[in-house]
């Protein structure tokens, strides 16, 4: 309760949370408000916003409803962001825990692999991966995950190294728990909080990376994404700027919301820990 009150006292965090709530509402309500395929042709092409109240935000080059695209795009952006972050944290946590707990050769091998992934520019890796595997939502998520798991892995390993020698771990050893059980049941849960603190950064970066990939023509063609909408609107950037500004603003707000809310959470939990 105290934490919640503290969270609510930071205006930035509240703003972030509100943005995220709105985004979630958009994503969940999309099929209800816009049951048709958002890529279907709904009206005349290049209708400007606020002209026709059945198409409040206008239409794009082919006459697709921008408002419907915005709502359905929220689903894709959220899906990419959350799935990539979940994947990155899961892989990172497992690799980091194994490396930190096992030590020795396994640690060396895992950390060299982590180094290798960190050495290759993440976006370049994503670009090559999607070009090779073909653009679909799943490959985009995998591509982003590939470049994002190294941060969580390092932090998890560092945490595990410090937890490894604590009393309760020694206790678990004494009662004869299997080392893997110790690693994943005793150590990992305690190493997780600082790793989770990275999640907002990863979600935000994932949403931006998806947009950049779509911009280069590597988005899923069967789905509306904000990045894809921006890329579509780019050809008419000068004559119909609203087509890239509307999804662009949505994208910026979302990324900002994720950051602010994430930061608020981290700060609240940090102060809580300090007080405890």
């Amino acid at each position, binding site marked *: 309760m105290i934490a919640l009150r503290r969270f609510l006292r930071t205006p930035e965090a509240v703003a972030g949370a509100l943005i995220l709530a709105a985004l979630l509402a958009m994503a969940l309500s999309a099929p209800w408000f816009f049951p048709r*395929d958002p*890529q*279907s*042709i709904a009206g005349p*092409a*290049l209708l400007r916003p606020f002209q026709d109240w059945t198409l409040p935000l206008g239409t794009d*080059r*082919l*006459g697709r409803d921008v408002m419907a695209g915005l709502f359905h795009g929220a689903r894709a952006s959220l899906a990419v962001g959350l799935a990539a972050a979940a994947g990155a944290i899961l892989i990172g946590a497992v690799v980091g825990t194994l490396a930190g707990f096992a030590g020795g050769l396994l640690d060396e091998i895992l950390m060299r692999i982590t180094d290798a992934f960190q050495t290759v520019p993440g976006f370049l890796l994503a670009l090559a991966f999607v*070009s*090779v595997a*073909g*653009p679909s939502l799943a490959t985009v998520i995998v591509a982003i995950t590939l470049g994002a798991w190294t941060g969580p892995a390092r932090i998890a390993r560092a945490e595990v190294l410090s937890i490894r020698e604590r009393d309760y771990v020694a206790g678990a050893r004494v009662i004869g728990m299997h080392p893997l059980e110790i690693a994943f049941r005793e150590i990992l849960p305690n190493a997780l909080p600082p790793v989770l603190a990275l999640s907002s950064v990863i979600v935000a970066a994932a949403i931006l990376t998806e947009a950049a990939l779509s911009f280069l*023509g590597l988005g899923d*063609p*069967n789905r509306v994404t904000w990045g894809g909408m921006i890329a579509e609107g*780019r*050809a*008419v*950037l*000068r*004559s*119909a700027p609203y087509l890239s500004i509307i999804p662009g603003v949505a994208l910026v707000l979302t990324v900002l919301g994720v950051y602010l809310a994430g930061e608020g959470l981290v700060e609240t939990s940090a102060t809580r820990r300090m007080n405890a």
Partner: protein
Amino acid sequence: MSDFAISRRGVLAGSTFLLASTALPAALRAQTPTNGGRLIAAADSEPRNLNPAIIASNGVFFVASKIVEPLAEASFTGKDGLEPRLATSWEGSADGLTVTFKLREGVTWHDGKPFTSADVAFSALQVWKPLQNLGRVVFKDLEAVDTPDDHTAIFRFARPTPFQLIRNALPALTSVVPKHLYEVSEIADNPANTAPVGTGPFKFAEHRPGEYYRLEKYDAYWGEDQPRLDEIIYRVLPDRAAAAGALEAEEIHLAAFSAVPLADLERISKVPGIGVISKGYETLTYQLVVEINHRRKELADRKVRQAIAHAIDKEFVVKTIFLGYATASTGPVPRNDVQFYSSDVPTYAFDVAKANALLDEAGYKRGEGGTRFALKLLPAPYFNETKQFGDYLRQALAEIGIDAELVNNDAAAHQKAVYTDHTFDLAIAPPVFRGDPAISTTILVQSGIPDGVPFSNQGGYANPELDALIAKAAETLDPDQRIALYVDFQKMVAEDLPLINVAEWGFITVARSSVKEVSNNPRWAVSNWADTWIEG
């Protein structure tokens, strides 16, 4: 013909500004051309191999056609649509076994050596016939080239070859390269492929990868008082949005091949000092085609193919995707081809109800969720419009209960999926019509083509009747008879729909109005620009 007229009007409306600058040039032509100056053009791709004798493609021609010349060039006014370049006259024998070229005298290569019939013989036998993508088909029966003197070349064919076909092939297929440079080492690895040497009005100066190509005036060019320009620079602008900005900022003078997106043309045509020109691509007509994999049981059924044809609103495609800068197709030969086009073919009006009825008739009833069957749709990645048509076609197919999944590949993966592995159901391709159906059009429906050949029939379609017709036309010498056979060809393709022709388009050039003599021949962007000049 009605939608043709509409779209033409659309084209003209889009280029009213241009009408003032080039289409009605009488008043302006009185203006005396000035010599000198540097023309900067946008290039969106960067071919490494600039030898047009080996790679007869527009990306290569765009740069190389200023350096290496063909025997003849396409023309709006010349006889048979041609005007002389390295050949001054050409004549075919009645038996179709020889073609005699008289060559221009006093022409020199950029390294100063004289141009002779030996160069033509070498190019034809060592390059066009064995190595060139298009020449392998057209010159397959070329046996020998006699050179009785330095300025006569006589092509001898093993089997009768229609002179009409050879004539139509002259602009694109007959770039002449210097024998003395190519005979000393292997042709495919010759340094002149990346730094070409020709007889054209401009010499190759340098290529800075990722930045530009630079061509310089060739002072000893044979054309009188040509070239006008001192220098041509092709500035590499890989980003599609960049060309329009660069034109407005006066950093470039010219963007050909629709480098400025169609959707931006209306706006940019209103910018003072910039003209939008839709002329100059008449013999390089691109066709928007739905390729069909006939190995798929449903698609092997003609009724299903007809249903798909009825489901496509060609007028929407022309108006919305091409913004009027295209024409709806009726068959495999574009309407703007005066020699071969026939409108006497079965047509497929946009009619969703009929399409649904045809599918019901074929036995593909709507299942749960209203879907009859699902298929994979692969739009070619080369043009914005092919991708946009993919988005549209997916929606159009949904209306008739076909659930199409779009698969976007990059160029290499698309080539592999469609033309080698055949892992597609429908694909969208932009083949080029090059003035004669035998050059690059019949190959789209003919059977027996090995796997891996791009822009060919890889859909497993085999129609012995159509194959026989194609074979007969290939050896028919009389031009009128030949045309009649190709009229039948168009009828048969439109009837059986081995593929669906949706629309055909030429490109758009956007140029600063200070550039003169733009688009003055039907393949201007890939011609030699010897008479082009810049004001002031």
